[in-house]
């Protein structure tokens, strides 16, 4: 029995911390673990017949690979799944990120977000924005809502957060909602 030739479909990858393993993800929201860099290189640039048979089967099943005969069908399937994911996020988001301030009093080495000095003016959301934001969240038809305050350092805008949480408690009554702050260390 001859194994049909396979070809690559697009994916993204990153190394898992200090582990030799890599995780690959694709536009259909599937993921696969690659044992080591050699396996990753084979998948990207090598002879695909060198992949272990079970890994090859897994990558085929998750649409990281395609056979020439079914490539177009798999591309269509990935497009359909990606459209579904986008639609879910457009129509019914359940996570809302609010950035009440871009000011920050920390200098974390890992930080990649926009931030300005703690004394800068003009980088805070006004309290008058709270009602409009809650209106927007209230219009989304999801039973559960998670609200996350990010920054900058969100606790520099503690009065905003306090008023927001109090008003949300009143106006989103009947909905399950949870608030958290993404604090910096």
């Amino acid at each position, binding site marked *: 029995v001859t194994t049909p030739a396979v070809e690559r479909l697009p994916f993204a*990858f990153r190394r898992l911390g200090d582990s030799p393993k890599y995780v690959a993800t694709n536009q259909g929201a599937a993921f696969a673990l690659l044992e080591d860099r050699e396996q990753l290189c084979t998948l990207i640039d090598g002879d695909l017949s060198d992949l272990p048979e079970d890994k090859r089967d897994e990558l085929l099943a998750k649409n990281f690979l395609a056979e020439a005969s079914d490539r177009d069908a798999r*591309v269509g399937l990935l497009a359909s799944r990606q459209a579904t994911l986008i639609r879910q996020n457009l129509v019914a988001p359940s996570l809302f990120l609010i950035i009440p301030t871009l000011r920050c009093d920390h200098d974390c080495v890992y930080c990649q977000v926009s931030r300005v000095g703690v004394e800068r003016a003009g980088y805070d959301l006004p309290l008058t924005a709270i009602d409009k934001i809650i209106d927007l969240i209230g219009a989304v038809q999801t039973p559960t809502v998670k609200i996350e305050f990010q920054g900058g350092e969100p606790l520099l805008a503690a009065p905003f957060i306090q008023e927001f949480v109090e008003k949300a408690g009143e106006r989103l009554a009947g909905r399950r909602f949870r608030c958290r702050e993404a604090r910096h260390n």
Partner: protein
Amino acid sequence: VNLKKGIECGTVCLPREGVSETVLRKALYWLTEACEWELEEGQGHWQVTLRGGQDGPNSCRAEFDRLLNDFLLRERLDQKTGHLREQITLAALKGLVRDDTGC
């Protein structure tokens, strides 16, 4: 970037033919803040000077090498599959528009 502070980890010369500016800048962008870098453009090569590092002078170089190799692999993957990624994204967006407008 202030190169007067920190410990020098060495200078890396990379052929411009083998390493695109996009790949190089992506690798440098994702270096930790503990690593300071300076990029110079030479005749036919890039010259990267690295300093600092939280775990000794070689840690910046090791991290830079890893990032650079990963972004080189991503560039190669994109050369092979980028057209399919675009095809999938376009089909997904067209599907959304079709559902929204009924056309």
